[in-house]
């Protein structure tokens, strides 16, 4: 049997499909071409390894099933899964159906997509396909329905806020909303006139033919296919230029990530994959305290990525972020939101200045001779109780200490790096690194998580083990060098962003607290803990706003029934103190008070 | 019936008289002007709430008018004892106690001639500015709108050179208040306040100061103006040190407002001599002590209320009016 696979209404769809294909190929080719040499190498080394297989499995899990969204929000996960996986299955089953009817012959793309239209002359029907196609269509439609609901009542979907979109997105979104209802309409009308169809299209078709006049059906028949084709075409044209780019981009991203690519200190081509893999689902909005506490709603990661993608990023958006990492842990695509924001800031602010910080050259105000170095950090100098507590702990453990900055030192460089002045920050890092080597330390303890993070991530200290004081204290206790006595005190613990989400240190401080008293967890703790609001990463919000965040986050501590809030960051300590009437102590203070 | 003579018909005098009268004591107010109200009459709005000054004065005046208080206008006391007051026309009034509420004198800005008050057209005092507000005609002498206005704090206060060591207390917040009022009238103008210290002692004052800085963008420069000179465009060039940067600073302004201080009345000395009262170093009357007897003089039967003893804000003056009535009642019983 020969079939004609062309009708004029196919044109919008065909044009759309071609535009989309060309745009995608051009984009991906350019991004890959522009990848830094090192990234290209990683890619080549990774392609023919099992990482590619792992990537395929991840693509299935994440791009089709959206497992991570399920984890965050099952209803939202179902919506994405039904749309993505349902549509995928429709396409896949459609192809099989064509093969089943026509055997292995060449059928043009529009032939597959509009098979129902072209296949009205078929003599036999295969009910199993009718059923499956209708079933998957229903599945997609249920997703569309949920998407509509999400737009209208985001709270019903478990989201307080949903993303506000740009014009391109709205066009694509509207087209997408209509694709499947129009498909349902077109196929049902076809069934009404020609018969066939499954439980959905077939039933609607029979009902239509019974209740609607033949002339009306005839009149609606062609236009319905036209509309379906147009909505598909519009969607495809808009896709590469809208957020729907994520549908395809997440796939190469998963592969590249498996090969070890990641955003760098400076902006690079790889960032394109991450930025355009953002579906603007808006999951990052709710965790953001700037949104929930301060009502700032144009700076969250989704908007940041959008602005950066469309090259309309402003300093005030790039800088207005606590970089607490709460959104990053929730991102279903696993985009490195902080790294991207960081390298945007670098692009906007980094000015290499050779003469800068020339005054550091001859500075060395350190004292002591020990192999264990203690770096208080700038902020700890403003929380002298932490400093004296550390002194007592070192003494109790009999540790010989080299005090790097007790008499005033040089900043670790992270605050400057956070502000985007990357190259200048390196000078401070180089200075401190040389200072550490000069004094031959083997262990570097710091009580400031901000310093800790940069020591670990940037300093590359050979032969020097970097520890946060919580890790160090726990080690001393486990080695039996530090004896503490528990006294039944009730503590709650605030996870500093840079220590918890930033450096993955959650258990050590808790273990230390449990050794001296009872630990009562706040509602939001560990990965979910709130930021205190004074993060050095944010240079936009004012003092009143910082205080508001501090008060809102500290409210939870009182509800735990604890007597004391413990934290292990001098900045958090200062800030939480402003937000609560409860006593706030650094971990080291609590330990020093409980020395046996 | 006992009779108390209250010397001075400003807010302190009126408040004192009213509170005594309410206790059934006969009161005579002696006021040198031809109307009651004192210095507050010349004021437009009061810090820090921008309350119209006449709300305070008119209320007190109406209460006095509807009471049995004997008011003698246009005459002043030249001598007093605890039992009598001699008036300028030679009349001697007998009484059972005297409350001295004769207030203060505004510092004459012409003495600080380097600021050019009375010499250059647009150098005015804070009192002149209130007068302008009252008349609703604020602006330059030629009717123009000022583009840059400077306020100078501590004119005639904390200044050994004019023998006024004391702080006049209310000028700082007046300067802030007037700066805001000027900024409201002339939003396009830049306003600079030159100060030595900013002393925001009362409730809401510090908040007002901060509002002036943050919401009204009023520039505060820590440094005393040394001199004002005319420029060829008819503006005033003023010089000061920006002490916070350690650099001299000069700036041309269209208007210079001198925040004049409170000094003691010239006749305090003669009154004090006639009654054997003690004067403070500042020339103000010295109360018996600054704590439990701060409205009593060193002589029984003679009392003080208001700014006759030291610069005070309006609220403080009114409190003293109430306090002195209490002290007088106690004395008479």
């Amino acid at each position: 049997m020969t079939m004609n696979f062309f009708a004029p209404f196919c044109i919008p769809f065909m044009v759309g499909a071609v535009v989309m294909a060309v745009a995608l190929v051009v984009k991906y080719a350019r991004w890959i071409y522009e990848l830094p040499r090192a990234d290209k190498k990683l890619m080549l080394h990774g392609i023919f390894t099992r990482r590619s297989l792992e990537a395929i499995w991840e693509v299935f899990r994440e791009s089709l099933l959206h497992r991570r969204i399920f984890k965050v929000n099952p209803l939202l996960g179902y919506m994405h899964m039904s749309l993505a996986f349902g549509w995928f299955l429709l396409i896949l089953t459609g192809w099989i159906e064509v093969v089943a009817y026509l055997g292995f012959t060449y059928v043009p793309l529009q032939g597959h997509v509009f098979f129902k239209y072209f296949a009205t002359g078929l003599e036999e029907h295969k009910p199993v396909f009718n059923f499956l196609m209708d079933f998957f269509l229903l599945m997609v439609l249920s997703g569309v329905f949920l998407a509509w609901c999400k737009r209208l009542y985001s709270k019903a979907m478990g989201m307080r806020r949903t993303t506000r979109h740009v014009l391109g997105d709205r066009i694509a979104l509207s087209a997408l909303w209509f694709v499947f209802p129009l498909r349902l309409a077109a196929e049902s009308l076809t069934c009404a006139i020609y018969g066939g169809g499954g439980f959905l299209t077939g039933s609607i078709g029979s009902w239509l033919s019974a209740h609607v006049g033949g002339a009306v059906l005839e009149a609606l028949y062609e236009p319905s296919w036209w509309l379906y084709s147009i909505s598909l075409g519009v969607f495809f044209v808009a896709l590469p230029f809208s957020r729907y780019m994520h549908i395809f981009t997440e796939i190469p991203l998963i592969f590249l990530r498996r090969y070890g690519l990641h955003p760098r200190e400076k902006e690079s081509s790889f960032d394109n994959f991450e930025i355009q893999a953002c579906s603007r689902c808006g999951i990052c909005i709710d965790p953001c305290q700037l949104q929930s506490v301060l009502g700032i709603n144009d700076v969250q990661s989704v908007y940041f990525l959008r602005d950066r993608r469309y090259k309309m990023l402003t300093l005030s958006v790039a800088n207005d972020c606590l970089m607490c990492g709460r959104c990053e842990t929730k991102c279903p695509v696993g985009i490195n939101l902080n790294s991207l924001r960081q390298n945007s800031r670098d692009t906007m602010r980094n000015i290499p200045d050779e003469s800068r910080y020339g005054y550091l050259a001859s500075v060395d105000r350190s004292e002591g001779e020990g192999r264990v170095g203690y770096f208080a950090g700038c902020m700890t100098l403003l929380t002298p109780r932490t400093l004296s507590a550390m002194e007592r702990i070192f003494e109790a453990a009999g540790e010989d200490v080299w005090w790097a900055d007790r008499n005033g030192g040089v900043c670790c460089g992270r605050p400057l790096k956070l502000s985007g002045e990357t190259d200048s920050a390196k000078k401070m890092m180089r200075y401190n690194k040389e200072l550490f080597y000069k004094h031959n330390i083997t262990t570097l303890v710091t009580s400031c998580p901000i310093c800790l993070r940069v020591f670990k991530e940037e300093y590359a200290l050979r032969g020097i083990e970097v520890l946060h004081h919580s890790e160090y204290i726990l080690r001393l206790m486990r080695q039996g060098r530090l004896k503490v006595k528990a006294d039944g005190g009730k503590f709650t613990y605030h996870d500093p962003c840079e220590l918890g989400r930033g450096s993955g240190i959650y258990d050590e401080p808790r273990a230390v607290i449990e050794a001296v008293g009872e630990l009562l967890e706040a509602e939001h703790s560990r990965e979910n803990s709130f930021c205190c609001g004074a993060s050095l990463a944010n240079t936009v919000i004012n003092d009143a706003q910082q205080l508001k965040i501090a008060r809102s986050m500290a409210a939870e501590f009182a509800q735990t029934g604890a007597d004391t809030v413990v934290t292990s960051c001098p900045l958090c300590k200062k800030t939480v103190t402003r937000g609560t009437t409860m006593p706030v102590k650094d971990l080291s203070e609590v330990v020093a008070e409980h020395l046996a | 019936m006992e009779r108390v003579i209250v010397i001075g018909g400003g807010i302190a005098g009126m408040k004192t008289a009213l509170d005594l009268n309410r206790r059934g004591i006969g009161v005579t107010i002696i006021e040198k002007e031809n109307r009651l109200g004192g210095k507050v009459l010349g004021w437009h709005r009061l810090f820090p709430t921008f309350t119209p000054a006449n709300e305070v004065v008119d209320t007190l005046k109406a209460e006095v008018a509807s009471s049995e208080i004997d008011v003698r206008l246009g005459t002043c006391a030249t001598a007093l004892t605890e039992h009598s007051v001699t008036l300028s026309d030679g009349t001697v009034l007998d009484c059972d106690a005297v409350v001295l509420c004769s207030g203060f004198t505004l510092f004459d800005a012409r003495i600080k001639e380097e600021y050019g008050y009375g010499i250059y057209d647009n150098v005015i005092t804070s009192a002149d500015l209130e007068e302008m507000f009252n008349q609703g005609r604020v602006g330059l002498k030629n009717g123009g709108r000022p583009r840059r206005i400077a306020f100078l704090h501590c004119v005639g206060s904390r200044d050994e050179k004019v023998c006024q060591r004391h702080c006049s207390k209310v000028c700082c917040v007046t300067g802030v208040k007037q700066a805001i009022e000027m900024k409201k009238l002339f939003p396009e103008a830049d306003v600079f306040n030159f100060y030595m210290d900013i002393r925001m002692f009362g409730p809401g004052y510090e908040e007002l100061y901060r509002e002036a800085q943050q919401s009204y963008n009023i520039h505060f420069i820590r440094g005393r103006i040394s001199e004002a000179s005319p420029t060829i465009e008819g503006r005033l060039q003023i010089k000061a040190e920006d002490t916070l940067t350690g650099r001299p600073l000069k700036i041309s302004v269209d208007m210079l407002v001198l925040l004049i201080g409170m000094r003691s009345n010239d006749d305090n000395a003669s009154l004090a001599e006639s009654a054997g009262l003690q004067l403070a170093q500042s020339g103000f009357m010295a109360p018996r002590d600054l704590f439990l007897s701060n409205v009593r003089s060193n002589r029984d039967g003679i009392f003080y209320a208001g700014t006759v003893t030291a610069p005070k804000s309006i609220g403080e003056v009114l409190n003293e009016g109430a306090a002195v009535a209490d002290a007088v009642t106690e004395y008479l019983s």
Partner: protein
Amino acid sequence: MRRATWSEYQKDIADDKYYYARSCIRQNFFPGSERAFLNILSKDLGKDILDDPAHSSCTGIGYHSDIVPLETIMTVVARQFSLMNEAGYENFVTSCITSFGIYTEVLATWEEFPETEEKTRENLYKATGREFTKPKSLAHTSDIIFHFRDLIADKAVRRLVNRATGEPLKVVEHIGCHYAKIFPKSGIGGSEFPYVLAGMVDSWGGECVDYPERRHCCGFGFRNYLVQANRGYSIANSHKKLESMAPYHPDFIVANCPGCTMFLDKWQYTIAEMDGRTYGENGHGIPVLTYEEMAGLVLGYDPWELGMQMHQVDVEPLLDKMGVDYDPSAKYLGRNGKYIGKPEAAVVNGCSQDFIYDIKV
């Protein structure tokens, strides 16, 4: 300008019988001025004034440069008084503002700290065998001219007006710092609005200019000038004043301090040579006069007789404006008709820098 308060700052000025103390700077740089002062007093006004050859410098410059100690200068001052006593005079007038400041300061010190006066008497006696009594009145010579300003106006042959337009001449009056800034009560009109020169200008038909830097020091500043490396500070002060007065187009500057007259005059030359900047009309400097010269011109003295050829900034434009008859060819002839030499062409007198320094563009 409304000088509201000057009348509150008055001082007693003797009417006759003056003992005259010369000024180091004035007699060196403006020698005609001191002669003119003596002539005006004795000849025009018929007053008794003694120019005693025995008196000396007050050593004020040395004192302000930390070279002459306080005790020494007090003794020098005491000697001058002693000479005055010896000559039978009681009214001390001094030609120099620095000296005026010194005498005022020394008298005030003796008043406040009588032991210093005793010590001075002892020192003077030990050194010279002299004793002294303090003068009855102390005045600066500009105070004397101010005192007789109306008499001079009566005798005037011309006024401070532009002959061509009939407009009053615009005058910048500059008062030496030590005239009244140390002791405001010692100057006529006080320190903020001194009236000593303004009074002369008012009486003689001119108009004073009140410009922003009116009060500023000329920049002499003793050590600032005496040490070459510091002269940048000195000239910066004159520069500031000149920049500030230039927009008012003054016809001339008059000062009562010899140092100020000298510096406002000579620094104009230097600024013109350094920067090519001049402040007067037609690319010339602004003529700077002593008040004796101003009085002399009003009284009809010959400008070369007054020594006005000694100025760095040429005064001829001013003389022309005032309609003064003078012989241009006699400018550089001394008292006996002898040629006294002529200064090089200077930028401040309208000569281009390119010409003077032969600059190849």
